[in-house]
C-alpha cells in the first residue's frame, strides 16, 4: 500500500470516496434545512442536536472537514497536473463535440462551491464556533430571549438579496458539479455493471433535487421572514 496514493488511479478513487462521503453529508444537511420550512421548533431542535452532540462535533465534524479539504486540495492538485500534461495548447480545441461542459469544468464549479463555502463558514460556522468554544456558551439560547436562536439566525441571514443570489448561483453550480461527479465517482471506483444505468439516473435526480432543495430553503426564508 505504500506509495499507493501516488498513482493516478488511487487518486481518482480517493477523489471518488471523498465525493461519496460529501454526497451523503449533503443529504443530511438538506434534511435538517428542510425542517425549517415546516417548523421552527423542529429546525431548532435538530440544529441544537447537531451543534452540541459530542459524537457529531468531535468525531463526525473533523472527518467532514478532512473530507472537504481533501476533496478540494486533491481536486486542484490533479487539475494542475492535468493541465501540465499538455504543455502546448491546441490552436483549436472543440471539447464540446465529445464531452459535456460540466465534465470539462469540474474545477470551475468546484471553485465557485469553494467560494460559497467560505461565505458559508463566515456566516454560520465561525460564529457558531466562536459562541460555543471561545465564549463557552453551549446553551443555544440568546441572553434575554426564550427558545433556541438558530431559526431566527437562519431567517436573518437570508434577508439580503445578494446573499440569496450567491446561494442560488452556488447551488446551480453544485448541481452541475454533481451532474458529472455523481456517476463519475462510481466509474472511478470501477463500478460498472448492469446497475450503471440506474446510477446514472440516480445521479441526475440527485444533482437536481439536492441543490433545488437548498435553493428553496433560501428563497423561502427570504420571502417569509
Amino acid at each position, binding site marked *: *500500500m505504500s506509495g*499507493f496514493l*501516488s*498513482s*493516478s*488511479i*488511487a*487518486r*481518482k*478513487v480517493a477523489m471518488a470516496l471523498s465525493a461519496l462521503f460529501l454526497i451523503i453529508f449533503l443529504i443530511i444537511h438538506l434534511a435538517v434545512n428542510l425542517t425549517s420550512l415546516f417548523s421552527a421548533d423542529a429546525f431548532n431542535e435538530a440544529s441544537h442536536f447537531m451543534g452540541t452532540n459530542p459524537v457529531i462535533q468531535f468525531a463526525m465534524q473533523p472527518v467532514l472537514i478532512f473530507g472537504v479539504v481533501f476533496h478540494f486540495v486533491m481536486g486542484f492538485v*490533479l487539475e494542475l*497536473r*492535468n*493541465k*501540465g*500534461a*499538455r*504543455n*502546448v*495548447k*491546441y*490552436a*483549436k*480545441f*472543440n*471539447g464540446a*463535440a*465529445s*464531452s*459535456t461542459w460540466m*465534465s*470539462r469544468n*469540474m474545477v470551475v464549479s468546484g471553485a465557485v462551491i469553494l467560494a460559497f463555502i467560505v461565505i458559508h463558514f463566515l456566516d454560520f460556522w465561525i460564529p457558531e464556533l466562536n459562541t460555543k468554544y471561545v465564549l463557552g456558551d453551549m446553551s443555544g439560547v440568546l441572553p434575554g430571549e426564550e427558545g433556541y436562536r438558530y431559526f431566527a439566525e437562519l431567517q436573518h441571514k437570508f434577508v439580503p438579496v445578494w446573499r440569496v443570489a450567491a446561494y442560488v448561483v452556488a447551488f446551480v453550480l453544485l448541481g452541475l458539479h454533481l451532474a*458529472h461527479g455523481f*456517476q*463519475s465517482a462510481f*466509474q*472511478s*471506483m*470501477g*463500478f*460498472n455493471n448492469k446497475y450503471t444505468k440506474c446510477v446514472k439516473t440516480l445521479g441526475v435526480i440527485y444533482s437536481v433535487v439536492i441543490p433545488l432543495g437548498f435553493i428553496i430553503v433560501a428563497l423561502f426564508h427570504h420571502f417569509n421572514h
Partner: protein
Amino acid sequence: MNLTLKIWRQRGPQDKGQMVEYKVTDISEHMSFLEMMDILNESLVEKDEEPIAFDHDCREGICGMCSLHINGEPHGPDRGITTCQLHMRTFKDGDTIYIEPWRAKAFPVIKDLIVDRNAFERIQQAGGYISVNTSGNTQDANAIPIPKLDADLSMDAAACIGCGACVASCKNSSAMLFVSAKVSQFALLPQGKVEAADRVRNMVAQMDAEGFGNCTNTGACEVECPKGISLDNIARMNREYLKASII
C-alpha cells in the same frame, strides 16, 4: 472546392513551431483528407518548399499511424473513423480547417504533424503481454473454453489501434482508455488472469511515469476513438487496479 488550411509547422523537436496558412483549390469532395494533403504537398514540392510531414501508412483505418487533430478534434469531425478515412465531403467550399498534431507532453512533436508515441510502446512493454514462449506444443487451442461474451468483450477491447486519439481528445491528456483496453483484453481471458495483478500495476505505473494526465471521466476519448473502445474498460481497469493494490 477551395479551402484555407491552417497547419502546424515545426522543423524539429527543438523548434518552436507555428501555425502556417495554406490555400488549396479544386479539391474534389470524393478525395480523402490525406489525398488532399498529398495534393498540397505535391504543390509545395513543385514550389521547392518542404512538404508537410504527417504520419500515415495503411490508409484504411487499421494501422493507427495517422494522427491529425482536425478542427479541434482528433481524426476530424466524423465519428468511428481515422483521419485517413475522413473524406472531403465532410467540409464545405470556403471552409477554414485547422490541422494540428496530437498535443500532450508525453507525445512530443518530432516534425510538423508527426509526434513521438513511444510512451505507448513503453507502457505495452511494461506488461501488455501474456508470458508464454513460442513452442509447438502449448496446450490445444480448444483446451480452455471461453464464454462467447468474454471472448467478444476481449475482442472489442483488443480492437484498439494505438493511434493516441484518446490522449489527444482528453482535456487532461490521459491515456487511460488506451491502457485500459489492453488491460481489459487480457483480464477478460483465462490465459491473462495469471499475471493480471502485476500487469495492471506495472502498466499503470509506466503510464503515470510517462506524464499523461489523470482521467476525470469526461468520456471524450470514447466519443473520439475511431474504434469505439468503451469507457467500461476504464472502469474495469480501475477495478483491476484496486484489486491488485489492496488485496
